């Protein structure tokens, strides 16, 4: 099994992923409906958040991926260095490979600010060392050097936080992750592409490598004033004031939010990026509507 995202990026086909998570609890009826709807909307993959630092602590990403697999949905699992130690991350990655969920996003993980704020953060690995771990596993060995009975074909991505200041520190961090084995990159939610464009041109200038084709741009339809407010204070997310004002002045905010997200995805494709990731927050069908608006893009 080869990661579907690896195929798409390799063939330079613009990849569509939708990011979602199961509801809080073991019931999966609504989650399965959403998976089916996203598949029907022709999202190539569904990216499954697990136990995020902000928001409800839902089931693990790997468990959600195994449900997605049952319905023939291509999952992307999330590995948060905050939540698991090295042994547990290795175990999850082997499990991910076994259920053919080999596309993985690795992130440090925000400090716990959610309902489980008392949970002790781990941070045994950082993303750079997690990418090294992925490479070790892909070469058929565990981190202890023991041989695996089969080589996984994990395809691992890392986060680009283009709103970081100073930008150079983020350029260096991403470069380090790339050298450690990061296969693709995914941005934090964006509502404009100017900072990403600047990041990509600076990266190419500094390191002589154009990585745009390996970058998935994330966006999130701003469908209400509440949605905008809920993003404030989340590190790395910046809603430009003009976008906020325009949405807030509009009566049908949901429709305008969907339109903005679709336009940004079109712009991302025009820019030559590898794909787009659409997050739905508190409005499960919104990613489907963004895709419908995009038509056959």
């Amino acid at each position: 099994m080869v990661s579907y995202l690896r195929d798409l990026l390799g063939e330079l086909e613009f990849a569509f992923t939708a990011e979602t998570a199961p509801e809080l609890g073991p019931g999966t009826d609504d989650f399965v409906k959403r998976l089916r709807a996203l598949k029907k909307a022709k999202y190539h993959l569904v990216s499954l958040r697990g136990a995020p630092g902000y928001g409800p602590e839902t089931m693990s990403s790997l468990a959600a991926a195994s449900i997605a697999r049952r319905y023939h949905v291509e999952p992307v699992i999330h590995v948060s260095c905050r939540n698991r130690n090295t042994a547990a991350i290795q175990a999850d990655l082997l499990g991910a490979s076994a259920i053919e969920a080999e596309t993985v996003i690795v992130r440090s993980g925000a400090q716990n600010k959610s309902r489980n704020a008392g949970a002790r953060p781990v941070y045994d690995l950082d993303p750079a060392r997690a990418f090294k771990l992925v490479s070790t596993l892909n070469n058929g060995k565990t981190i202890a050097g023991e041989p695996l009975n089969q080589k996984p074909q994990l395809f691992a991505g890392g986060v680009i936080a283009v709103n970081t200041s100073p930008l150079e520190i983020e350029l260096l961090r991403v470069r380090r992750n790339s050298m450690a084995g990061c296969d693709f990159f995914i941005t934090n939610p964006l509502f404009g592409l100017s900072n990403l464009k600047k990041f990509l041109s600076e990266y190419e200038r500094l390191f002589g490598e154009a990585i745009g084709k390996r970058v998935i741009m994330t966006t999130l339809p701003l469908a209400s004033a509440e949605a905008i407010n809920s993003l404030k204070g989340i590190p790395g997310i910046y809603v430009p004031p003009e976008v906020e004002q325009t949405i807030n002045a509009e009566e049908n905010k949901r429709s305008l939010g969907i339109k903005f997200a679709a336009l940004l995805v079109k712009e991302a494709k025009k820019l030559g990026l590898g794909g787009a990731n659409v997050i739905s927050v508190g409005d499960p069908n919104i990613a489907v509507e963004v895709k419908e608006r995009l038509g056959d893009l």
Partner: protein
Amino acid sequence: MLFVECALCPRWNFSKESISELVKRIPANLLPVSVPVLCSVEQAEKSLAPLKGKEFDSILVFACGVGAQVVSETLGGRVIPLLDTKQISKKNLGKLEEYCEGCDNCNIHETAGICVKTRCPKHLLNGPCESILEGGMCEAKPEMKCVWVSVYEKMKRENRLSDFVKVREK
């Protein structure tokens, strides 16, 4: 009751006056004993030898967690620590900042003389995380500057940014 004081380390963080005040507030007959350095088993054994075999209701220990445990091992009895022990810290204008976690693998020469393992709240060896706040502040402790921003600034000043992108394994 026995009152055992480690004479050296706690003095860095508590004045003699504050120790006396503390002793006065404890309503009991105290037998005070001062040991130069409680974490030295030899010194503890030597200073506490006359007290071995004597029974005390409680043994109050004014020392770090190591000192309190050495007293417990040496004398037995009910040891009550009077201090909460923090890690290895820098003291600046009366405020303690943890600078070292005693990891037995010092590599601060790779991170501009700054121990990221201790001072980054996420202990990231290859930081920063993706969540630096505006102004280069730390997401986990917004009142402090991101330690990895400090590493970056120092390396930039010293023209050593090529070290920044190296992957540190431990």
